[in-house]
């Protein structure tokens, strides 16, 4: 099927390659939801590829304002105006001469310019010019037929509320419906889009985050658990931590392509265990990425130097990459997608998120948080990336809690770090709760973090860790 490539980042991916050609699409949303920028971005992207667009406004003077507001976007170009992007005023014709003349005007404009794309902004205003629903429906039907016969892909922009989408006649005629909306979530004002309908093609359902920035619109597809059964080649190789006692407990290291949760209270060394795992990989020529939401890069570098690790060398060589995202700025919808993009691009073999507790704090509901992690986990497994998620256990000496969000189901391996009280001193103990598809040592072992690195010591006689 022939398609109109939108050229908007990730939108064509959501649409399975683009919008079916000659379709009639409604872009709905309340004022300020980004509808006009959305279509303008599409028509200017297509103008650069040689396609011609006819943009018909229905409100006087809106063209002037529109062009003025678009000038700051990178997709906009003065050179394309009048040649590849042609503006017209359909509203004036309809108001003065009626619906029939409106269609004649449209046909004349089509014959004059032979556009590939026609936009009517706003169709909601046109609706108000008709005496009743029946005559408006007839107009929209004729409009749709005229546009498709002239092989035009059309966008009708309208300020529709969500409850109108199932009720009004224009939505029955539409081949595609994009609904744009915004909502406040925690500290972010976020914009979402949903593709409600797209005849003739499969598309990704659900809400997709989008941003309006200097480049125009950028879409971040919804992270979703795969509908089909997860299938991937099981690798039998192991990835070592380079921490002697721990690798022994794991029967040689973590199984390649698995996901490990390191849970522990503050100060137990979760970050250091995870970082050591990447450094060990770097030494073997495996690329690692450390995504930190807690400590900036220089702080991590300092700590690693203090432990005698050659972090600077691997950072300089590009074997190791540390990316710090402030938890204040963290937007899971956006970052989850970027993480997977980065992993794919850089052919990462070892990956750490430190910590996923920061993810949790930026997501409005716990189910969405689990869905994100599940989806990320599946994608990482498919790519055979051996991954560590660290998670903060806020209670220093509590009976064992892996995480509040029942994340243990998402992970293949769980390593617990915690404090124990022994003879009026605090010691650190680690235990392996599970390793999927492999044996592991069930003992609780004391460990210490010293200038020589991480040392796993012997069994602790009485740890009461699992009480």
């Amino acid at each position, binding site marked *: *099927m*022939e398609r109109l490539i939108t050229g908007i980042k990730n939108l064509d991916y959501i649409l399975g390659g683009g919008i079916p*050609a*000659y379709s009639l699409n409604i872009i709905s949303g309340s004022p300020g939801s980004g509808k006009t920028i959305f279509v303008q971005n599409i028509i200017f992207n297509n103008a650069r590829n040689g396609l011609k667009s006819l943009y018909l406004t229905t409100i006087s003077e809106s063209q002037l304002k529109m062009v003025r507001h678009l000038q700051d976007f990178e997709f906009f170009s003065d050179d394309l105006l009048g040649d590849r992007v042609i503006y017209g005023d359909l509203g004036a014709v309809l108001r003065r001469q009626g619906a029939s003349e409106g269609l004649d005007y449209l046909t004349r404009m089509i*014959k004059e310019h032979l556009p590939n794309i026609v936009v009517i902004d706003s169709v909601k205003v046109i609706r108000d010019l008709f005496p009743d629903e029946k005559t408006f429906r007839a107009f929209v039907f*004729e409009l749709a*037929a*005229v546009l*498709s*016969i*002239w*092989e035009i892909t059309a966008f009708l922009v309208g300020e529709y509320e969500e409850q109108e989408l199932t009720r009004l006649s224009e939505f029955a005629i539409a081949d595609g419906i994009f609904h744009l909306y915004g909502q406040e979530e925690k500290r972010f004002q976020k914009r979402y889009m949903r593709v409600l309908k797209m005849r003739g093609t499969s598309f990704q359902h659900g809400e997709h985050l989008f941003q309006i920035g200097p480049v125009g619109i950028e879409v971040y597809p919804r992270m979703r658990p795969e509908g089909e059964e997860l299938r991937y080649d099981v690798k039998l190789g192991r990835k070592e931590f380079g921490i002697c006692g721990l690798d022994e407990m794991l029967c040689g290291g973590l199984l390649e392509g698995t996901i490990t949760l390191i849970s522990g209270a503050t100060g137990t060394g979760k970050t250091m265990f995870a970082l050591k795992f990447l450094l060990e990989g770097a030494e073997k020529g495996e690329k690692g990425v450390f995504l930190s939401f807690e400590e900036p890069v220089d702080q991590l570098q300092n700590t690693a130097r203090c432990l005698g690790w050659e972090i600077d060398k691997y950072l300089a060589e590009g074997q190791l990459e540390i990316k710090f995202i402030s938890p204040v700025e963290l937007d899971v919808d956006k970052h989850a997608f970027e993480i997977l993009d980065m992993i794919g691009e850089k052919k990462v073999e070892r990956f750490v998120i430190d910590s996923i507790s920061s993810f949790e704090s930026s997501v409005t509901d716990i189910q969405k948080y689990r869905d994100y992690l599940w989806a990320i986990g599946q994608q990482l497994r498919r790519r055979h990336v051996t991954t560590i998620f660290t998670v903060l256990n806020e209670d220093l000496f509590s009976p064992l809690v892996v995480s509040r969000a029942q994340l243990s189901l998402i992970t293949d391996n769980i390593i617990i770090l915690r404090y124990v009280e022994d003879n009026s001193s605090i010691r650190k103990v680690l235990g392996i709760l599970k390793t999927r598809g492999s044996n592991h040592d069930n003992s609780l072992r004391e460990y210490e973090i010293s200038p020589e690195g991480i040392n796993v010591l012997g069994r602790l006689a009485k740890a009461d860790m699992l009480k």
Partner: protein
Amino acid sequence: MSEIIEKRIGRYETLLKEMWTASSKYLGTFSVNLLVERVVWEVSLEYKEIELLQYDQNGISCAKMAARLEENPDLPVEDMFMKFITRYVEILARLLGYERAEEIKKKLDEEFAGDLSASREE
């Protein structure tokens, strides 16, 4: 109307009517009417006389065209109709997909002994 002119035009009128029927199965008569209107406009840029074609949602007729041919026997009707048919089928193929357009073309070919193929090869 002379028998010769009736024969010259009649062949194309039958072909156009078959095309109309075959494509309205997929497009509906309203859209077929619009498609004819589009193709008439496009061909009229070269052959103004194509505007003599009469059509509405009930069908298509070449009566006025035949009358004009009576006045001007040199009218290049063959070329004009072939351009019309070729363009019509081209657009139809893009709108419906080549598979369905081929079905329509095949049906017409069978009834008109390869006229349509010859027109598309031009």
